[in-house]
């Protein structure tokens, strides 16, 4: 870790003021931006210790919990403040009852200690676990050092992405909660030097393309203040299925966030997002379209899974991942259809 200046923002205005200097100082690369917001710190501090991130100024935004630390559930949907802790959202009775996919995605992530610290806003911005990114002694990492290449391609790639990858980056987006937000069509509340804006959650993260160092569509100095999840007849029949080598405290090797609105077994609406092998939080409109209007059966679930992974790109050890992803989605859909609500 390198020395940095620590600032505490008492409220949103103070944070944005600090963020303005970030806007002035920043280049394009998110990872090496000189000003960083600090909430739970579960990603930032880790990466600072590893020397991956080297901020000059760290702006503690935990004071914003007074303005953006609430969970509100109503007929229109669910509002989640960015400073809500993962554990608090996972344990919230309305979230558990009406949005089980959200509660499960949070509960199956990390450990209780981490969930107690990590904020929802920070969680969706969690950085990849790609070891070539996290170990700075690898010279080639386009995400960390733009233009340097990708050491991960051709290396052990069991943990890498197969959907949305490019020849410049195959890093996997590791989060779980983001899958639930993507599936449910959530929006993101953003405040920044340019004012307030709301964007679909699906548009928050960017595909790596030839600019893997630009990870999101957040402008320098912008701050996520919350998420809105619209109500819908599908949210109660929803679940998050996470597949991993061990039973707990591990990132997904495959995951599926699914929500269904069924009418006598026929899919009126389906929501599908995939994880564990995706370059960014991955809503599968292809899978949803394949299900809509069809009875939810093994066959239609298989067809949806085939559609979801039609564009998968594999390199080596990761060759099994599309098949595992398909099986994960089929299992999730059938389990979801069988839910008693």
């Amino acid at each position: 870790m390198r020395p940095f200046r620590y600032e505490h923002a008492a409220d949103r205005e103070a944070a944005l003021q600090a963020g303005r200097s970030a806007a002035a100082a920043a280049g394009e690369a998110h990872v090496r931006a000189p000003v960083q917001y600090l909430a739970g710190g579960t990603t930032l501090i880790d990466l600072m210790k590893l020397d991956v991130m080297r901020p000059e100024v760290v702006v503690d935004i935990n004071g914003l919990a007074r303005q953006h630390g609430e969970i509100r559930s109503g007929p229109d949907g669910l509002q989640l403040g960015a400073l809500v802790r993962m554990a608090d959202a996972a344990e919230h009775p309305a979230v558990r009852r009406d949005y089980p996919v959200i509660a499960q995605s949070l509960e199956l992530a990390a450990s209780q200690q981490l969930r107690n610290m990590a904020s929802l806003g920070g969680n969706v911005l969690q950085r990849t676990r790609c070891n070539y990114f996290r170990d700075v002694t690898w010279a080639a990492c386009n995400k960390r050092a733009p233009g340097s290449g990708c050491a991960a391609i051709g290396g052990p790639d069991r943990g890498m992405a197969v959907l949305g990858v490019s020849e410049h980056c195959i890093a996997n987006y590791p989060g779980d909660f983001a899958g639930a937000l993507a599936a449910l069509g959530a929006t993101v509340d953003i405040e920044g030097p340019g004012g307030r804006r709301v964007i679909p959650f699906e548009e928050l993260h960017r595909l790596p393309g030839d600019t893997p160092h630009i990870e999101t569509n957040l402008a320098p100095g912008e701050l996520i203040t919350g998420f809105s999840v619209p109500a819908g007849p599908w949210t109660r029949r929803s679940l998050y299925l996470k597949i991993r080598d061990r039973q707990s405290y591990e990132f997904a090797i495959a995951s599926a966030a699914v929500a269904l609105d069924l009418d006598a077994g026929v899919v009126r609406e389906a929501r599908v997002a995939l994880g564990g092998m995706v370059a960014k939080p991955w809503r599968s409109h292809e899978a949803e379209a394949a299900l809509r209007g069809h009875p939810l059966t093994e066959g239609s679930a298989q067809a949806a899974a085939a559609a979801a992974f039609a564009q998968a790109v594999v390199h080596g050890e990761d060759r099994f991942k599309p098949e595992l992803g398909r099986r994960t989605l089929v299992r999730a859909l059938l389990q979801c259809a069988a839910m008693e609500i």
Partner: protein
Amino acid sequence: MADDAGRPTGGLIGQPHVRIDGRLKVTGQARYPADEPLANPAYAYLVISAISRGRVAGMDLAATKATPGVIDVLTHENVGQEVKPPMGPDGKPTTTTLESDQIWHDGQIIAVVLAETYEAAREGAYKVVVRYAAEAPSATFDSPGVEVEPLKANETRHDPAKGDAAAAFAAAPVKIDARYDTPIQHHNPLELFSTTCVWEGPKLTIHEGTQNLYWLKGSVAGQLGLDLADVRTISRFVGGGFGSKGAPTSRTAWIAVAARRLKRPVKLVTTRDQGFTIATHRAETRHHLQLGATPDGRLTALVHEGWEVSSRPSSYNVSGTATTARMYACPNIATKVTVVHADRNTPGFMRAPPDTPYMFALECGMDELAYALGKDPIELRRINDTQTDPVSGKPYSSRSLMKCFDAAAGKFGWAKRDPKPGSMRDGDWLVGYGCATACYPCNIGPAAARLSLTPKGKATIQLAGHELGTGAYTLLAIVVADRLGLQVDDVQVMMGDSDLPPVPGAGGSNNAASTSNVAAKACEAIRQRLAMAAVRTNAGIFAGVDPATLTLVNRALVGPDGRSEPLETAASRVSPGAIEAHVENVPQGLPPDAAAALYHGRASLLRGQSREDVTAFAFGAQFVEIRVHRRTCEIRAPRAVAAFASGTIVNPLAAHSQYQGGAIWGIGSALHEQTEIDLRTARYVNHNIADYLVPVNADIGEVDVIFVPEEDHEVNPLGVKGIGEIGIVGMNAAIANAVFHATGRRIRKLPIRIEDLL
């Protein structure tokens, strides 16, 4: 209760006892080496190489030296001549560090940054710019450029063989011919590798978590050219070792040099990722196994060939064929081991080093043979059970293998198993049962101890033993209390300091046997002095009685007729203060210089598979239930049962934990653990414990342990066989066999993962 000589004992050996150091540990008061308070320490941070083969062409240290708080940087250029390289785990040359510009492997120590704070040292280390002259490295088996070295027999290693195995295999009516692979594994003990060095004049004190105080002391003295008497190693508690802290490694001498340069204590605590390359690991292995059998299941041929990876300069190997050749009655045996040298750090000891990988091959092969014969796997082992070492023809000191199988099978519910693969289900989960033999040779070494007993009945035993979390302190308190007629709480145990009498390193499951037998011998020396004084006095009740018949029971000296006198009375005849004994115990069969070598940190063990009189192994049987999801193929192990027969169990409470820990590690070994290597660069990539997986609580269900009673009068006077390693040995194969039973898929490599079963 009576011991071998028919003398009654205190009845404490074999009774469960809570750890005497448990409170210290759970309240944070147990002082681990990095916890030692120091006056004005400087802090060290290691710079390690980012290439695996080549040379350090140069370093730019300007930014490092300009970092506030940085004091000094050690490199091969300024200190390279001050240290002789340490020997590897096998006592032979190994890779070097700052001695030269040469880079042998990924993550090799190439500089040490010294600073006023840990944070400044780390920041300074991050700012070191290294220029490399890199060469193309060889990563592992099959990589271009590896050197292949078929091992030869010598004084210490043999390739067990008898009969004509090739011909017997060719003629066998039923055959298994299969290849197996095991991965690179790292110990990752909770306590990070640390070293603190303090000089007082010519005397060097080293605080370092170690499994071998005297070896570390002797190694550093030799490396720095110091008088052995001027080096002291202290390690009162070790936060887990598993073999990783068994042999001296390079870092220690450099921290000593740093402390000498700075004329102040220097403390190094390495990071988790550095631990993957500055210490040792379990190397990847390959196996070719051929089993031949008659249609009724009798083995006629066993051919086991192994390949192991090591570093360029070291031929360290585990040669587990010494175990697999001895498991079952077989008239024709051939074995061979080959070391493949790559650009890697030297491997070393890791729980049951030879047995864990080699028994995976043999015990999977036995399961395959059972299926080929249409026999129950337990019955196949029963048919081939033996009380005679098939290689040497010597009797086993004791072998209760089938008792273990029968006890564990009953508890596990093996009878409910439908042997047909894929036949058992629970909803969406395929269910499989598997079993395997566990074993470990019984090793014992020379050891010394100092014991004192006060007239009030308080005893103190001192020896340079090692507490790795195994309950070593408690073990000695139990033995001394038992033999001196005291309560466990009356005994103080002092260990973890090379100023105390030497014992072998804690490894190879020798600790309980070596230390308990020397402790018992020290107790016997004190009993004899009390008894002699009592029978020689004219005034006492024991005047003229045979001193051999007097025993210490319940703080009294007791005669054969039941008369007794208080310990205080008996002791006051010998000394008005404490009675002291210093004893050395050299087990019969060790060379004459064994005691002298012990003081130099070169303890030679009497090994269970190479004794003159008997072959001595502990045995066990391990059973596992595996569940595999029929769609997504996650593999879970909700249930394990194991039975072990390991001679005298001094403290069943600690032994139960040790056995359970072995089984739990076995679940990790078979299903989770694997160090991934980048084949292009020979670098480890998952060098952290988020990506190097070990089981978490949610992965472990029931782990039942059965103690099969066993008295062994041959193995050593107390009949202690040792339990440290055996708990893991059968697990790899038991799990692979259960996976086959659940799915019909025979996976011959570890770890077994989702993608193997899709």
